[in-house]
C-alpha cells in the first residue's frame, strides 16, 4: 500500500473517531440532563423570561439528534458558542486559557525528553552497576509518585519553608519580580514546570532505558563496536536512534494529553490555564465550555496519535502499512 493511501486512510479514521467521541460527549452530557434543567436545579431563582431565552438559545424545542447536528455544524465553523457564566466566546476563552497551559506543558515535555535521554544512556551504558540501579530506582519512584503529591512537596519546600518561589498563580498581582513581567512570569513557572518535568522524565527514562538495553544487545551494535567506534558514539548515534522509536508513542500521548492532565496540575498551583477553566465550567454547569473543551482535548489526542503514526512511517521504513 502506498504511503499516501495509508495516510488518507488514517486521516479518515481519525475524523470518524472524533465524530464518534463528539457524539458520546454530546449525548452522555445531555442524557444526564439538558442544560436548562441542570441550571434550574442549581439556580432555583431563575425568572421565566431568562429561562425562555436560555431555552431558545440552546434550541431546546428541537430533538436531541437535531441539536447534536446544530452543535456539530457550529463547531465545524469554529463557532464554539458563548459561555453561560462569562458571556465571552468560548473559542477565545479556550485560546487564552489554553496558552497558559501549553506554556508549561510543552517546555516540560521537551526538557523531560532531553533529560531522560541523558539518564537512560548513562544507565544503559553502566548496566547493572550502582549508578544504573540508582537512576532506575529514582525513575521508578518518580513514576509512582503521583504528580500532584510531587507538586505539593515542591510548594511546601520551596515556597513555604524556603520562600524562594511563589506558591500559586502565573503572575504577581502587583510588584512583579525585578519590575519585569517576563521575569515574573518565568519565576512563577519554575515550580509547576519542575513538577511536570520530573514526572515526565521518570517515565521516559524507564521506557528509554529498557529499549536501550534491548537494542544494545543486537548484532549491529556489536558490529559498530567491533569497527572501533567509541562507546559514546555507539550509544548516542547508533543505539539511541533505534531505542527512541518505541518511545514515540508515549511522547505522542504526552502531547495529546496536555490539556487533559491540566486540571490537577492547575489546582495544585492555582494556575489560570485550560484545566482551571474546565473545572470552573463544571462547577458552574457551563455546558458550552464543558463540551467544547472536551472535544478540543479529543481532537488533540487523535491528532497527536495521527502524527505519531506518521512519524513511525517516516522514521522506520520497516513498518508495514496496513
Amino acid at each position: 500500500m502506498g504511503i499516501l493511501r495509508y495516510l488518507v486512510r488514517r486521516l479518515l479514521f481519525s475524523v470518524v473517531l472524533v465524530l464518534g467521541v463528539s457524539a458520546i460527549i454530546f449525548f452522555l452530557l445531555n442524557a444526564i440532563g439538558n442544560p436548562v434543567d441542570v441550571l434550574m436545579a442549581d439556580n432555583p431563582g431563575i425568572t421565566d423570561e431568562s429561562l425562555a431565552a436560555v431555552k431558545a438559545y440552546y434550541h431546546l424545542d428541537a430533538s436531541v439528534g437535531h441539536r447534536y447536528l446544530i452543535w456539530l455544524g457550529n463547531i465545524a465553523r469554529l463557532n464554539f458558542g458563548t459561555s453561560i457564566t462569562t458571556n465571552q466566546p468560548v473559542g477565545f476563552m479556550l485560546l487564552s486559557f489554553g496558552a497558559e497551559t501549553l506554556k508549561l506543558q510543552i517546555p516540560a515535555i521537551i526538557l523531560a525528553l532531553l533529560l531522560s535521554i541523558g539518564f537512560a544512556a548513562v544507565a544503559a551504558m553502566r548496566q547493572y552497576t550502582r549508578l544504573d540501579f540508582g537512576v532506575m530506582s529514582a525513575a521508578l519512584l518518580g513514576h509512582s509518585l503521583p504528580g500532584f503529591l510531587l507538586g505539593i512537596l515542591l510548594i511546601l519546600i520551596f515556597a513555604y519553608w524556603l520562600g524562594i518561589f511563589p506558591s500559586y498563580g502565573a503572575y504577581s498581582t502587583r510588584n512583579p519580580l525585578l519590575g519585569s513581567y517576563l521575569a515574573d512570569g518565568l519565576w512563577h513557572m519554575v515550580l509547576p514546570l519542575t513538577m511536570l518535568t520530573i514526572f515526565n522524565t521518570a517515565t521516559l527514562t524507564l521506557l528509554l532505558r529498557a529499549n536501550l538495553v534491548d537494542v544494545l544487545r543486537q548484532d549491529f551494535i556489536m558490529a559498530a563496536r567491533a569497527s572501533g567506534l567509541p562507546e559514546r558514539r555507539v550509544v548516542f548515534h547508533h543505539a539511541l536512534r533505534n531505542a527512541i522509536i518505541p518511545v514515540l508513542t508515549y511522547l505522542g500521548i504526552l502531547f495529546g494529553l496536555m490539556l487533559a492532565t491540566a486540571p490537577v496540575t492547575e489546582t495544585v498551583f492555582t494556575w489560570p490555564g485550560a484545566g482551571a477553566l474546565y473545572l470552573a465550567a463544571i462547577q458552574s454547569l457551563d455546558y458550552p465550555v464543558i463540551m467544547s473543551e472536551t472535544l478540543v482535548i479529543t481532537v488533540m489526542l487523535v491528532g497527536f496519535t495521527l502524527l505519531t503514526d506518521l512519524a513511525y512511517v517516516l522514521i522506520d521504513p520497516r513498518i508495514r502499512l496496513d
Partner: protein
Amino acid sequence: MLGLILIALVVVVAIVGPWLAPYTPNDQSAMLSFAAHGAPSWAHPFGTDRNGYDVLTRVIYGAPTALAVGLGAMLVASLIGILVGGVAGYLGGLADELLMRLTEFFLVIPVFVMILAVVRLFGVVVVGTWLESVPFLNLSTIVLLLGIFGWPPIARLARAEFLRLKGMDFVEAARCIGAQPRDILFRHILPNALPSLAVVIALGIGGAILAESMISFLGFGDPKAISWGQLLYFNYQVLRVSPWAVLAPGTAIFITVLGFNLLADGLSDAFNPRLKQ
C-alpha cells in the same frame, strides 16, 4: 516482593482498621477544644486537620475505600476487556476488526475530564430523586465509569493472548473432543492468558486508585465516603498551617500506587523470565 509487602500493609490496615484507629472517623471533638490544625502528638500521631478530625483515623478508614475503588473498577474493566479482547482474538476476521476499532475509539475518549463532568452533572440531577438514597452513589458512579472507560488496555492484551493461544495444540485437542466454544474460551484459553493479564490488571488497580484520589482531590469525590483524595481536598487550602493533614493521605496514596506498580513489575518478571537474564 516489596510491592507485595506494601499491598499487604494496605490490605491489613483496611481489614483491622476499625480496631486500629484511635478515634471514630466522624469524631470532630478537637474542634471544641480549639485543637483543630493540631501538630502530630501522642494523642494524634498524624495531627488533626482543619475539621478537627484525627488524621491517622481518617487515613486508616481511607484504605478500604481505596481498595474497593481499585478492585471494583478493575473488575468491571476486566469483564468487558476480556470479553471484547477474547472474542476478537478467538474469532478473528470481521469481528476482530470491528471490536478492535471499538477499542481504539474508547482509547481516545478523554476519560478523566469526562468523569469529572459526568459526576458533577449527575450529582445535580439526582437531587430529590430516589437515587439520592443509594449509599455511596457518587463513589459507585466513579468506580463504574473508571471501569467502563478503563478496559481498552486489557482488551488489547487479551486479544493478543487469545490469538496466540488459540493455535496451540491443547486448544486444538479440546476442539477435537467436541468442547463448546464457550468452554474453550473460558476454561481452556482464559486460564492460560491470565498471567499476562494479571500484569495489566495490577497496573490498572493502582491507576484507578490514583484516578479516584485525583477526582476527590479536585472536589468531585463522594462526600459520604472517607477517601484519601478527599482528605487532600479538605486540607489542601491550609497546607501551610497543617501540612501533616495533606502529607499523610498523600503518602498513603503513594504507598498503595507504588505497591501495585511494583507488583505488576514483579509479575511481568516472573512470567517472562526470558527478559530478565
